[in-house]
C-alpha cells in the first residue's frame, strides 16, 4: 500500500530529456530493413506478371512496350502500396526490392506517388505518349 508509487519515475523524468520529439524538425532514423518504397530493376524482368497478380492492393502495373525485346515499364502507385513485400517474394528473378526510403506518405496531390520504373528511354517514351493522350491501357491482372 503506497501513495504516489510513481514518484520515482516522475522525479527522474523531470531531469531527463523528454522522449517525445518535435517531429517535423527531428526525424527518427529508419531501421535497416524498413519496408519502404519499392524499387524495380528492369534488366532482369521477364514480364511474368506474378508480382502484379498477388499484389493485394493493385499497386503495381506492368506496362508492356515490347514483349519480345523485354521492354517493360513498371508503374508503381506508392500511395496504394501496403508495403507487404508479397511482390518481392513472388518475383523469381529478384527484380523487386524494398528500400528504406519514403515512409512519410503525405502530400497534397497524387503526383509524387506515381512512380515509373524502367529504362530511361522507355519511361520517356511512355510519358510522351501519355501526354499525347493515346497511352496504351495498362496491363492489369485480368
Amino acid at each position, binding site marked *: 500500500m503506497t501513495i504516489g508509487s510513481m514518484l520515482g519515475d*516522475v522525479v527522474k*523524468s523531470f531531469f531527463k530529456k523528454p522522449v517525445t520529439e*518535435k517531429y517535423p524538425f527531428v526525424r527518427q532514423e529508419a531501421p535497416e530493413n524498413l519496408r519502404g518504397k519499392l524499387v524495380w530493376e528492369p534488366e532482369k524482368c521477364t514480364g511474368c506478371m506474378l508480382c502484379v497478380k498477388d499484389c493485394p492492393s493493385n499497386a503495381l502495373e506492368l506496362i508492356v512496350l515490347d514483349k519480345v525485346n523485354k521492354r517493360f515499364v513498371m508503374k508503381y502507385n506508392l500511395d496504394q502500396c501496403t508495403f507487404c513485400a508479397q511482390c518481392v517474394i513472388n518475383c523469381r528473378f529478384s527484380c523487386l526490392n524494398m528500400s528504406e526510403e519514403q515512409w512519410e506518405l503525405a502530400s497534397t496531390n497524387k503526383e509524387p506517388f506515381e512512380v515509373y520504373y524502367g529504362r530511361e528511354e522507355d519511361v520517356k517514351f511512355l510519358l510522351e505518349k501519355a501526354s499525347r493522350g493515346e497511352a496504351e491501357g495498362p496491363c492489369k491482372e485480368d
Partner: protein
Amino acid sequence: MNITFPSLIALLLFPGGLFLLGSGLFFEYLDRKLVARFQNRIGPRWFQPLADFIKLLAKEEVIPAGTIKSLFILLPIFALAAALTAALSVPLFGFKPVFSYNGDLIVTLYLLSMMTLCIGLAGANTEDRFSIVGATRALTQLFSYEAPFLLAMLGPAIALGTWNISLINQGATQQSLWFIVSQPIGFLAALIGLMGKLELPPFDAPEAETEIVAGALTEYSGRGFGLFKIGRDIELVVGLTLIASFYLGGFSTPLDFLWKVFVLLLITAALQSLFARLRIDQTVGLWWRIGAILVLCQLVLIIVGNTLSPFIAPLLGG
C-alpha cells in the same frame, strides 16, 4: 514593494487586468509544461495557451436549444469578472493590493468560489446529460473542499489576528517561523483545496473526459469556453499567490513572489501527475473524513495557542 499604482492602471493594466490575464496564460503554460516534463514529454510551447485562447475567441459560439440564453451568455463573463475581482485584494507579484480593507480575505475567498458556482449553473442550464452530471459533481465537490479550504486559509489569519490579506502578508514576512512549518496541515489542505477548486487531476471528476466528456462545460464552445478557461487560469494565479503569501512566509518583492509561487506550482504539477482520478464519492470521503477533521483540529490548536500565547510566548521565544 510599496509602489502604489493609480487605480485605473492597476485595474486595467498592471498588476490587475491585462497583465493578470497574461500571467494567467503563462501559469497555465507552466503547469502544462511541468506536467509534461513529469511525464517525460516535451509539452507545449510558450504561446500555446494564448493560441488556444485566441482560437476559442475566434470560433463560433453555439447556443444549444433548451437553455436560458441570457444566462448561457452571461455566466462565463460573470465567472471571469469574479476571478478578476478576487485579484484586487491580493498582493499580486509582491505589489501592494489595489483595494485593501479589513475582512477582504473572506470576500476574496467567496469570489474564488464564484467560478465553481458559475460552472455548476452553466451545466445545469443546458439539457445535456454530461453537463448535468458534471454540474452535480462540480457542486458536490464544492461542498466537500470549500469548508476545509476556508478553514485552512483562516489558520494564518487567526494566528496573526487580522482578516486583511495584505496585513497577513506583512505579518507572515515578519514571522520567524513560516506558517508551512507551524501549520503544515493547513498548508496541505489549502493547496489540495485549490487543486479541487480548479478541478485539476486527481480531482477532475467533474470534467472527467473519459466519462462525461467535458462535464458542465460540454455545451460551451468558442467565446464562453475561452472565458471560463482563462477565468480558471486567473484563479490559479490568485490562489497560488494567496497560499504563498500565507504559508511561505509572505513576500515583498516580485522576485520573492516568483520563486515561491514557482515552487508551489511545481508541487501542484507533481501532485497532478502522481495520482489516478478520484471518484466523486472518494473525493467527498477524503475531504470530510480526513481533511475537515484535521483542519478543524489544527484550528482549535491555533485558537488555544493564541489565547495561551501571552503565557507561553517567552518559552517559545516568539
